[in-house]
């Protein structure tokens, strides 16, 4: 057992912390207000190697491990959860499945642009009647004249507006449920794919959330990712990694709330005392620190297991569940400590609070995560892991 970060993890943490504090944090409030995609920041993130950090060097990535990813995503989210999710989706939901399931040809074609920031990726699973029940999705893919032809509407796609490459999950087999699905690498420039409605939303406002419309979209046969009928498996395996990234996002938000609150209560005076001198304040900070610590260690554990090639579905769900509920709770608590100042836009607290909510929803709602965890706890006969 060794809970110490390695020398390169610490150097990585210091580097990304400084990058986030100097380049991202000063822009975060404006990006949120204007709901504008931060193209320049993403280009700089790519130059640092943040867009393909777990991709091996031979495909243009940094070749780091999943623990490094947790470190990076926490630091980015500490400055802006909106900027962070753009980076996290590219890493965990797009580059990662191409690396795990792609052919050599697909990896050589798609990974270098994604990791170098010449191209951005998005993950298209959700549909209007397939969110939590994703495996019921209805987008169709059929082979016609040696090409795949895909038709359907994807909803709530992060990076949907700016993405050049979409991983689209569609029903290719006449089988209901997960086994009827396949995954496809669809370039935005292919005929028959376009961006539909762009959503306005509560938080992570500088990251776009859009509908992706596929109307007889023609995709070369070699752009099938993995095997036919393997789409459900790929989608879920990808989400294990994605959930660790979202756990790290939530941890970054909880830490932001804790750090801002700690500074504020030392300086705010009322009833002749500093706000920090009230025991109610001290206990709130203690609880925020405790839960954030717990969430971080659980995210490290999940990433560590995944790095060893072990199954981590339950551990990733545990990490995201506790981290997202901690982020929601801690940002809520911090707004309260700030009083009226927590509610107005001159301070970042209201932004953290708005940003935190999404962590309980995407890549598996808290309810779905409880389902995943409880299934593993109860198991079927003989496989229960209480």
């Amino acid at each position, binding site marked *: 057992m060794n809970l110490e970060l390695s*020398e*390169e993890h610490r*150097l*990585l943490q210091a*580097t990304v912390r400084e990058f986030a504090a100097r380049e991202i944090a000063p822009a975060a409030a404006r990006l949120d207000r204007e709901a504008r995609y931060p193209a320049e920041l993403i280009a700089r993130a790519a*130059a640092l190697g943040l867009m393909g950090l777990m991709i091996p060097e031979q495909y243009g990535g940094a*070749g780091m491990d999943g623990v490094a990813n947790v470190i990076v995503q926490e630091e980015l989210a500490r400055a802006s959860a909106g900027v962070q999710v753009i980076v996290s989706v590219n890493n965990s939901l797009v580059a990662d499945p191409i690396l795990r399931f792609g052919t050599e040809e697909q990896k050589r074609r798609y990974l270098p642009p994604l990791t170098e920031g010449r191209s951005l990726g998005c993950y298209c699973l959700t549909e209007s009647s397939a969110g939590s029940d994703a495996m019921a999705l209805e987008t169709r893919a059929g082979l016609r004249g040696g090409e795949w032809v895909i038709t359907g509407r994807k909803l709530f796609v992060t990076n949907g507006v700016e993405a050049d490459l979409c991983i689209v999950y569609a029903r290719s087999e006449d089988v209901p449920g997960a086994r009827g699905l396949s995954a496809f690498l669809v370039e935005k420039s292919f005929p028959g794919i376009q961006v539909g409605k762009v959503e306005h939303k509560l938080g992570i406002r500088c990251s776009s959330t859009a509908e992706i419309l596929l109307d007889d979209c023609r995709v070369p046969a070699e752009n099938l990712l993995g095997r036919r009928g393997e789409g459900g498996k790929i989608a879920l395996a990808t989400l294990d990694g994605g959930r660790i990234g979202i756990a790290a996002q939530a941890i970054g938000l909880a830490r932001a709330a804790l750090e801002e609150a700690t500074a504020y209560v030392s300086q705010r005076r009322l009833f002749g005392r500093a706000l920090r001198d009230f025991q109610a304040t001290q206990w709130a900070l203690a609880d925020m620190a405790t839960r954030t610590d717990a969430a971080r260690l659980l995210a490290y554990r999940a990433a560590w297991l995944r790095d060893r090639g072990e199954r981590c579905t339950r551990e990733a769900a545990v990490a995201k569940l506790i981290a997202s509920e901690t982020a929601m709770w801690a940002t809520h608590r911090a707004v309260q400590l700030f009083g009226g100042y927590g509610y107005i836009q001159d301070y970042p607290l209201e932004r953290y609070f708005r940003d935190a909510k999404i962590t309980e929803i995407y890549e598996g709602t808290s309810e779905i995560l409880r389902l995943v965890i409880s299934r593993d706890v109860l198991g079927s006969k003989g496989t229960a892991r209480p």
Partner: protein
Amino acid sequence: MNIIVCLKQVPDTEAPIRIRPDGTGIDETGLNLVMNYYDEHATEAALRLREQFGGTVTAVAVGPERAREALRQALAMGADEAALLRDPQLDGADHLQVARALAAFITPRTPDVVICGKLSTDDNAAVVGPALAEVLDLPQATAIARLEVDPNRARATVHRELEGAVEVLEVPLPALFTVERSLNEPRYPSLPGIMKAKRKEIAVMDLAALGLSPEEVGSPGAVLERLTSPPGRTAGVQVNGAEPEAAVEAIITFLSERAKVL
């Protein structure tokens, strides 16, 4: 171009400094240690010279085992090689001893340019750079804010920012420069850079490996006697509720009689 950059690991300037109860030094537990900021600029300057003219950048530090981390950062930024000069006799070394150890490392490598930070933010002495130039018998320019090298003429043109003026010097190479923070904007170590740095060996050399006898390093001319905290700040004076004229009067009295600045 053969470039050597000297660097030091120091406490983060934002970290609260606690002095050990016996006054023999600072308490390093939980202290965030970083590469001296000026040395980040020195490293950047070295890397830019290599990018312009080719060659190698070697980073060298005198310090304890933990100073490896600062060297690792230099490697991650792009330095080619790194060496840690570590010896019990160098614990508590003064600036001249550090300069002698660095010189023993540098001399056989016959550099074209040696670059140091203007000062290190832990003791603010600004001595090692100039002392090193003396021991190496190299021309030097300190606190430079601009550096242009003409390798064909083996000369460098540097700017030094003085109060109200800029001094422009031409310096023959090889030379030693200490750099000001306004010289450049240091790059972040990139993630691939961090991974490459991880695979590189940091050479560790003691005095014997440097070919220095204890006598050549000498004993410290200045020995740390005791560290004490600066006196705590006393409460300020508040001028409350007075009429504006009376308040101005009170402040002027304070400034002239108590603070003695008027």
